[in-house]
């Protein structure tokens, strides 16, 4: 589905996207034309982060389906805050460590992990536990704290955001994974896979000045989309997001939702989240706005969703 979606949206976006050499690069390296049998979304519940990830990827054809020998891989977790893993402000470190290890085992030449953090990046990388997990798994943490690491790209399909400065790691890699954590968010209502994209961008003040939700949706139109959105719902933050105040904001759901489709991943995540904290998905406006921009679909009933419950 992902590739088909991509072709569809590329056609709709018109010549601009088609002429972009990078878009062409993605289509030419497409290795997933014969994968109809694989699900559009996998949801796992009831296991530890590593086990759930391995299991879900098996349903999707294994990590080798996305990472080829010699590939430069980027993983973009949420490491925005100087918070320990138990507070669920950042993506689960075990999940990230496992993904790094899987990418390496698939022959990735290097696995880079970064975020444009909100708190001091050195402390956030360290206290989130992600730096240790990544380094132990053979990956490389790269800073995102300086404008010089970012290059400007066009977003021809964007409404309010026509250009953005995106981290060079994303621009220069062969394949990347978007690995957000499912959280409540005071500003954007919820922070899931599309909100996580604000961490690949340099200037976020522009977002807040030009309709936050529209800008988030616009960023999701960037043609080099992640191979998968891996939504960490092992622990979720139900309130006081995105930083959280204490562990009372955290709920253990032991879940994982994976889809190449931003909108579908966020829609499913919102349904999971709403069981804990009832939230009107239309208040998380960027989800509907992204659908309008043909980024993906909210209609998950129509998708091939694989649901797995582990004990």
């Amino acid at each position, binding site marked *: 589905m992902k590739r088909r979606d991509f072709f569809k949206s590329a056609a709709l976006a018109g010549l601009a996207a088609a002429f972009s050499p990078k878009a062409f690069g993605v289509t030419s390296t497409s290795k997933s034309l014969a994968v109809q049998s694989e699900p559009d979304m996998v*949801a796992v*519940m*009831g296991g530890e982060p590593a086990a759930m990830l391995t299991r879900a990827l098996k349903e999707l054809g294994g990590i080798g389906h996305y990472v080829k020998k010699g590939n430069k891989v980027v993983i973009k977790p949420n490491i925005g805050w*100087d918070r320990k893993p138990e507070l669920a402000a950042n993506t689960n470190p075990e999940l990230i460590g496992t993904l790094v290890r899987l990418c390496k085992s698939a022959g990735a030449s*290097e696995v880079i992990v970064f975020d444009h953090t*909100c*708190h*001091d990046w*050195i*402390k956030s990388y360290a206290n989130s536990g992600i730096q240790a997990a990544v380094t132990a798994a053979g990956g*490389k*943490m*790269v*800073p995102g*704290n*300086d404008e*010089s*690491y970012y290059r400007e790209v066009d977003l021809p399909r964007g409404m309010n955001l026509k250009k953005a400065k995106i981290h060079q790691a994303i621009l220069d890699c062969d394949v990347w994974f978007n690995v957000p954590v499912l959280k409540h*968010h*005071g*500003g*954007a*209502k919820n922070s899931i896979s599309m909100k996580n994209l604000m961490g690949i961008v340099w200037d976020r*003040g522009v977002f*807040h*000045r030009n*309709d*936050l*939700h529209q800008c988030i949706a616009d960023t999701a139109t960037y043609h080099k989309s992640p191979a998968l959105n891996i939504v960490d719902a092992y622990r979720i933050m*139900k*309130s*006081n*997001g*995105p*930083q959280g*105040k*204490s562990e*009372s*904001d955290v*709920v253990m*759901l032991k*879940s994982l939702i994976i889809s190449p489709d931003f909108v579908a991943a966020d*829609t*499913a995540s919102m*349904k*999971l*989240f*709403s*069981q*804990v*904290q009832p939230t*009107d998905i*239309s*208040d998380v*406006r960027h989800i509907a706005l992204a659908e309008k921009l043909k980024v993906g679909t909210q209609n*998950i009933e129509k998708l091939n*969703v694989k*649901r797995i*419950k582990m004990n």
Partner: protein
Amino acid sequence: MKFLKNIRIVLSILFFLPILVFFLDFTGKLPLALHQFLKIQWIPALLSLNFVVIGILLILSILFGRIYCSVICPLGILQDIIEWKSKLFRKKKKKNRFQFSKPQNILRYSILGVTILLFVFGSSFLVILLDPYSTFGRIVSQLFRPLLIWANNGFAWGLNAVGNYSFYKVEQIAFIPIAFIIAIIFFFSVATLAVKNGRLYCNTICPVGTFLGLLSKISVFRIAFEESTCNRCGSCEKNCKSQCIDSDTMTVDDSRCVTCFNCLSACKRGGIKYDIRYKKHTANQNQAPVDNSRRTFLLASGAVVGSILMAKANNLNPKKDSILSRKPIMPPGAQNINHFNAHCTGCQLCVTKCPMQVLKPASLEYGISGITQPHLVFATHIFCTYDCNICSSVCPTGALQPIAMEQKKLTQIGVAKLRIDMCEVITHETDCGACSEHCPTQAVHMIPYKNGLTKPEVTEDLCIGCGGCESICPVRPYQAIYVEGSQTQAKAKKPEEAKKFDKVIDDFGF
């Protein structure tokens, strides 16, 4: 006795290097315990009433003379290093180049007197400006450290370009003109005087040096001529960087001798020695002291009047937006403005140790006598980290009292002021919430507005003034939310925890 000079050099390096490296370190990797080295400095010990250190320093000075100046004071050692290295640049590479000169008694006692008087009258202006340790701190943090960071960033740029991230770019400290100018003036005066006149700065300008000079006049050990062996060759005098040895009259001005022992090493015949003063009757060679009390008094009163006028000028600060005329925000642990202003010497240690670099030397925010004392300046992504109390734990003068982490999280250094009519949500009717997003206590939280939008609201009791909200507020030119500094750091209310969710979810919900 030649070994004494070597001991002095080794000890001074042992004291100097940790201080220098601690000030230079921008990675935060050095142990914070190194700040203990700074507590043995005279002015910090006096201001924090550290009686143990004061006692030790007093005993050392009364026993051995101005050991502090030659071994402990980083500014003194910096001068020695400059003097030593200046050989490379001087035209005449003479080793023996000093000559006895008369003490600048009027000047040095006036400065000491005025500094003390001003402090007694409540202005730490001269203490801040002239404390040698703090001067050293300002020179390193304003001049040397930026150079090091530039070098690091250049290096990081090169390495990052080839995919090596073992070095990373560090944000350069904001340029504060007044702090920079003070640092550069002192650096060049100290350096020039060091090259030309050895320790003239320490013996004329430095109030600590002058004070210790009074003690070294009566110290148990002192440098003196050995009349039986001295042949008046003048080698000691030429090597005396304090210019306090007069080989013609065979006298040493103890008040200016910094016990560097260079003379002992220079003398080949043992004609000058470091010996006990009180073992026999010494000839009274003390010069008649110049009566300069009147001049000192006049100078001092002038300075006192001046400083009172300066203090008055603090309150005149008319500006437009209220964010521009806000009260300065003191670092956590400052307690109240009077305590802080009286005890902080502007050494910049907390500024260099602040991992967020939110601490900056003040220009005139605290008035003239508070120049270079630290205050918080917020900028995008630069605010006071919730889980951090480094500044309060390294302060050597006690201006910032150590506060435990839990206490820090409730210390109200300021209070957020929201101008809701300027808020993005109201003016553009879009979601934003960046302020609340960055609020660690949720003192700034979102409440329903209209059309599913939410707008911020501030509960002042909960606010600790960290500035997360102000740092990220997208409204320009002036933020819709800003922090007003607290003159007295009150205790904020502990934020209530959210209600725990204890039902079990075993369905995906889709």
